Structures are given as C-alpha cells and as structure tokens.
C-alpha cells in the first residue's frame, strides 16, 4: 500500500487508516482495570510521520460545551519512530474509577483511545476509538425540563 493515490491523474495523500484492537469483550472495561489497546497504522510512509501521540481520555458530548480530560498521554517524536510503536504499537494504561461512560440525554460521557499522527508536511491526522468504562444504563429520556 503506497502513501499516495492517483485521482484523475493527480497525486494526493491517501487517508491513513488506524485500527485498534481492545483486549476486552465489547470494549467494556471495569473501573480501575487495566486497558491494553493495540493499534495498527496503515496507508502511510513511515518516513512521512514526524511524531505520534497516543492518549486515553474522556470527553463530554451533548448540548453543553465539550469538556475533556486526558487521563493518559504519550508523545513519540524520535525520528525515525521506534519499530515497537509504529506502525503498530500498544497503549497500556490503568483506568481510573471515574467518570464512567454515560449515555445521558443532554450530557454524555465518552472514553476513547486517540491516536494522532503528525506528518512532515505539517498536517496531522486523528483517529478516535471509543470504549466503555463501566456499564451504566442509558438514561431513558426527559422526565421534566427545568430550563
């Protein structure tokens, strides 16, 4: 697989593909449990990648401003990137006790593994892979609007 694809005779950068395999069924993790996620990056020239960031974070989604908290962060910018971390590598982290993943109505909490690639051209590419921390029941709907 080459890093560039010709479209109508013109060359343009191909979209990288990042796949992540989680070590738990259904991607559901208990609180304070270990998470091991293996990622594979395809469709890029190794020489074109200047740095790689891998993080585990939660963010809110819904009708409010997005809040975000990074629980685990690593940046790899040795050139070339170590063979054990690119194009495949592993994110290993101990998850916290909270906040648990939550499927509310106007507030949702999502946990994810993010892989961000930085290219020599200055562009970057982000791939996000959601998992569940805890097994909280979704909210069933709005009982009453207060405001």
């Amino acid at each position, binding site marked *: 697989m080459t890093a560039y694809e010709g479209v109508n005779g013109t060359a343009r950068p191909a979209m990288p593909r990042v796949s992540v395999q989680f070590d738990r069924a*259904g991607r*559901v993790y208990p609180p304070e449990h270990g998470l091991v996620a293996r990622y594979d990056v395809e469709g890029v020239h190794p020489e074109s990648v200047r740095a790689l960031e891998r993080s585990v974070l939660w963010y809110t*989604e*819904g*009708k*409010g*401003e*997005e809040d975000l908290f990074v629980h685990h962060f690593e940046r790899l910018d040795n050139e070339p990137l170590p063979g054990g971390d690119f194009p495949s590598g592993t994110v290993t982290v101990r998850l916290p006790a909270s906040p648990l993943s939550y*499927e509310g*109505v*106007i507030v*949702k909490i*999502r946990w994810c593994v993010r892989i961000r690639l930085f290219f020599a051209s200055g562009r970057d590419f982000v791939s996000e892979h*959601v998992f569940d921390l805890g*097994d*909280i*029941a*979704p909210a*069933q*709907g*709005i009982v009453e609007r207060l405001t």
Partner: protein
Amino acid sequence: MTAATPGKAVRNPFCTRHVHPGRMPALDAAGREIDLSRVLARLSEINGSAAIVGPHGSGKTTLLGRLADVLEAEGSCAARVRIGRIGDALAVLAALVRGRRGSVVCVDSWERLGPIWAHAIRWCAFVSRTRLLVTAHGVGALPTLWECRPTPAVLRALVARLPCGDTVMPPILEADVQRAFRDASGDIREALFLLYDTFEARARSVREAIV
C-alpha cells in the same frame, strides 16, 4: 432503569461538538457556502471598519470566525475578541494599539460594549489606522459588510452537512427541519438544539425497539 446493552451509544449529530460555531460553515440565505474572498474584497473596498449584522443565531459568529481564519492566514488579523465583560474593551484597545497599520481586529458582540466604549474604540482604530470587523444585531454606525439572514434553506443545508452517525438511527426529515425553524422563530442555533431533542427522542425509541 434498564440494563446496559452493548452498542448503546447514540451519536447525536446535533451535539455541540458538531454544531459549535467554529465547526459549522458560513452559509448565505440560500444555504450556499459564502464566498469568503468576495466578502473580504468588499471589506477592502470599504477600506475601514465594518459590521456583520443579523438576528440571534443567524450565523454572525460563524462568519466572523471564518473571515478571521482567512485574515490570520494572510497575516492581517490582529486579534479576535469576544465581548463578555467590561474588561474586554481594554483587550480590543490593546489589540488596536499593537496591530499593524491596516490589520483587522475581529470583535464579536459589538453592542455589549455600549456607546461610550464603542466610540472610544472606533476613534482608536481611526488613529491607529487599524480596522474593526464586528458582529452586531442591527445596522449601526459601522457600514454593513454582510447581513446574515436565517432561512429554512440555511438550516436544511447545515443539517445536510452534519455527520450522519449511526445509519440505524432514524433520519431527520424535512418536516422536522421546517418545524424546528418555525418553533425557534428563525434562530438557527436554537433550531439545531430542538433538532437535537428530536433526534435523541427518536433514537431512544429505535434503540428500545431493538432491545
């Protein structure tokens, strides 16, 4: 409360992640993307300060943000300031003083400054030969660069551009868009919030039916 089930996440395309002003395109009344180069050319013709006007939720902040992005890329944007407190007026003044001749200071929510600060800032812009690009609800002392007019076509075009998310979930219909626009009295932002509720309620019904 029901037991948790795998795949329970509802990716609502109308969440703020997708409909925040910084994430949305700037559209004209027909729902087409605004040609920013034409707008900036008009700003050059005005050769001074100007305002983007329109009612609540009509896309003024979005358009200002997009124009500021282009100006920044050209090196012409001195600062972006959103007026929320009294002290933000000082931030605008400082930007005008520091800005190069001909650069643009983008100010969101111009009316919040009040007449005294507005006059002071305009005078400062005149003296420092910098320009102001502001958003306002109505036509005022500054010439109008662009008037944002919310229409159902704008809302329809924005909805069409949102990520479709889980294809199992029911789509948002044209009738939903019309109703949201009507119920929100033309406030596009409010209409998007109403569509959030519509999508969320419908998605839950579908999910419960699946379970």
